[in-house]
């Protein structure tokens, strides 16, 4: 059955998408004519021709100042003459229907003359609405650059190029999505990025079979090596500086028009816990902060499962000093520990969802109302113990320390399997879940490169920028993971040479 379905799929893939392709030019114009914003008029002045364009997509300044004035003031015959006279760059003459369609849909002005109806002249007059470049909101950092990507791919590539003025910086463009035909760019530094990685990414992007591509997160899910994994296998970031440093390391970046996030790959699980702040601080401070973040994640995932496991099965482990506190705070609670934990965890998740959907100002209020009012009320009402309230609040706080939002979502949810394990088999259950997740991480790949990399396979060289970040002088090699064609970042001897005498 599966084979049959696969065959069928292949057949479909071979077909041309039918809904946005008309067979002839008049047909195309007729289809567009149904829309009110499609304008077509004939000029009877000096030059006789038909001008058609989409009002909402074209820049009226170019039309009025350059196109119409030229056409009205000169007597031009034939498209070639018009092309030479119109003072706009990149004007093209074509009879390829596919090109005409895509260009007109993007806001090109189409000019036809009576003598040759099949050939048209396309004048670029694209007017793109876009947001100004603003400060990063998801990956905010106190020091360092404060530019974030916007929804326009041209601006985004501009943000990258101005930081990396290299002729080898290559941008390959693809169109993904059968209906949306979204512009998608694969960006890499030629000669540093491994060609295999570039090919894998390009091929996977080409193979995407879907009608729409609204955001880069669609791509994360579609080209992931294991689409059913809770862990994101491409790192998404809204910081151009982060993308540039990834490119320099030999990674491949994917930009999607309409999405303010870039994707970099191949990535590892450790990279999700590194913030760009780590490179703006002295290396020892950065290393400590990284370790704190890592500890916070472990705490966030394991604290409530351990609470359940210890209170249900292993109360020998409770220190005698804490015994009285825990037992007396639990004595009023009508629920077993697991129910208590699930109720409180769900409350926190509710607050988080509510806070995320509401405008910022109200969101803060919700946080305070939820955190303080519901928390204290629940303890007073004897529904949860205050020890647990502290643990849950801390673990919620700890899960916010991840610099990448996507992995934060994963961490939010993977504690629930651990909770079930803890309730069923105590610490044994917690360790079983741990074994399962680590096994899964070991198997995961990011565009064919190991996802759990500096740890498995163990590569000592890559550990220098994993859990701790060594100083820049030690970062001589590009990560082994990238299989870079040029593995050296710099001349090691010159980097290490002491410059204590000014000559």
């Amino acid at each position: 059955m599966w084979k049959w379905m696969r065959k069928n799929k292949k057949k479909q893939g071979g077909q041309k998408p039918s809904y946005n392709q008309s067979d002839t030019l008049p047909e195309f114009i007729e289809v567009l004519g149904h829309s009110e914003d499609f304008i077509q008029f004939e000029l009877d002045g000096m030059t006789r021709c038909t001008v058609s364009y989409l009002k909402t997509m074209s820049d009226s300044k170019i039309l009025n100042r350059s196109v119409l004035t030229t056409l009205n003031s000169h007597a031009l015959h034939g498209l070639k003459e018009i092309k030479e006279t119109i003072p706009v760059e990149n004007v093209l003459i074509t009879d390829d229907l596919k090109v005409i369609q895509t260009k007109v849909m993007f806001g090109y002005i189409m000019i036809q003359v009576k003598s040759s109806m099949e050939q048209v002249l396309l004048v670029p007059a694209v007017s793109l609405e876009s947001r100004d470049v603003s400060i990063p909101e998801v990956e905010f950092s106190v020091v360092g650059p404060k530019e974030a990507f916007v929804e326009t791919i041209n601006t985004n590539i501009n943000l990258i190029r101005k930081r990396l003025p290299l002729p080898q910086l290559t941008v390959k463009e693809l169109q993904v999505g059968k209906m949306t035909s979204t512009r998608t760019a694969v960006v890499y530094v030629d000669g540093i990025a491994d060609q295999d990685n570039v090919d894998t990414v390009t091929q996977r992007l080409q193979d995407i079979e879907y009608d729409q591509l609204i955001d880069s997160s669609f791509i994360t899910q579609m080209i992931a090596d294991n689409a059913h994994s809770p862990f994101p296998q491409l790192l998404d970031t809204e910081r151009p500086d982060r993308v540039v440093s990834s490119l320099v390391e030999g990674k491949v970046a994917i930009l999607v028009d309409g999405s303010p996030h870039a994707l970099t790959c191949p990535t590892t699980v450790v990279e999700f816990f590194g913030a760009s702040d780590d490179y703006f601080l002295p290396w020892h401070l950065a290393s400590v902060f990284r370790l704190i973040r890592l500890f916070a994640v472990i705490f966030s995932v394991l604290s409530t499962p351990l609470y359940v496991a210890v209170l249900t099965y292993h109360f020998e482990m409770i220190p005698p000093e804490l015994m009285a506190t825990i037992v007396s705070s639990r004595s009023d609670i009508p629920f077993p520990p697991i129910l208590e934990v699930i109720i409180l965890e769900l409350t926190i998740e509710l607050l988080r969802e509510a806070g995320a959907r509401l405008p910022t100002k109200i969101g803060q209020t919700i946080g305070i109302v939820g955190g303080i009012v519901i928390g204290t009320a629940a303890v007073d009402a004897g529904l949860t113990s205050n020890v647990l309230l502290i643990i849950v609040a801390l673990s919620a706080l700890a899960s916010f320390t991840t610099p990448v939002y996507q992995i934060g979502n994963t961490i939010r949810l993977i504690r629930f399997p651990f909770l079930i394990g803890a309730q069923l088999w105590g610490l044994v259950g917690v360790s079983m879940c741990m074994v399962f997740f680590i096994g899964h991480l070991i198997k995961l790949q990011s565009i064919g490169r190991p996802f759990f990399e500096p740890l498995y396979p163990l590569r000592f060289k890559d550990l220098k920028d994993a859990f701790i970040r060594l100083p820049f002088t030690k970062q001589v090699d590009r990560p082994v993971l990238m299989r870079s064609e040029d593995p050296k970042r710099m001349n090691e001897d010159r980097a290490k040479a002491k410059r204590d005498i000014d000559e």
Partner: protein
Amino acid sequence: MKIKWNVLVLFSTFLLLTGCMPSKSVEESAIVQISGYDRGGEKGRIKGTVSIPQYGKSEKKTAASELYLTVDANSIKDVEKEIQKQSSKPISIGKLAVTLYSMELAKEGISDVIDVLSRDARLSRNMYLAVVDGQTQDLIENGYTQDETTSKHLQGLIENNVHHNFPSTSLHEFLYAYFAIGMDPYLPILSKKETFVEVSGIAFFDKGKVVTTLSDAKVFTFKMMKENFSRGMQDLPFQDGTIMLDNIGSTVDYKLTGTPENPGVDIHVKLESEVNEMVGVEEKPSPKLAKEMEDAFVEYFKTNAGEMIELFKKEGIDPLGLGHFAKTRTRHFDEKRWEDLYPDMDIQFTVDVEITEYGIFS
């Protein structure tokens, strides 16, 4: 696809089956923290007493209340069963911290009890064992401090003293000495005074039976011979008054002497100390006086240790573990022969006392 269904079925079976397993949270179990065993009413019966702390609903830990249960049973396991009958919550013995035996029971032998303790995996090996001079029931049921449970109080009492004059003790060390070749266990003795409990000495065992005891005053010497330590105090009458010695580091070294046919042991102790209190001594502190004090202490420790070794030889016990030490130094160690030779063995005790400081005075 087939395999995945199997896994799913298997997993949901686990889930459904474990739903039937009763699980009790902490507050729903009776956590026994101290237990004591006395001689029962009839011959061969044991009276067991446990105390279960009752945690109040209030957060304030001002008053620690306890529930005392006493039962008459045939065996140690029977005690647990009988106590279960009197308890509204399931008994949990995982946090048992102190186990007490009355001297009466200990003199008859607690081998059976030890056997139970050494088998039960739920018990902590850091648990303290002690022999009680008198009835354990009285000792347990007498609340000592307002804000502590009896078990916590006794645990602290033993732990604190182990850091000072008393040799280290725990279930683990007791079992080690009990099962080791050429070594015999000992336990601290607790005795109840009117309103308090004190550690009043050491009880020496010969295979599960208490054979002799050592009073509180001589414990320092015993600890000195047994292990290295760096705290503890010893007083000594000197001239017309008393001087107090503070130990700041003592090391002990055993050496096997003699021939394999006629072995002997040298025990050598090096003790560094300071003397900070002299009551009733007229003479001004000086290096000369310090030397005299050193000699007095050497003399005192030697007599004490000699008496102690004679006592051990007479009773045929070896709490210092000399046989165990010799076993590690001898190929084909013959335990029987060692025990035959032990009463007449040449065991020498030497001690160096160095008083490094006697305070600053002007």
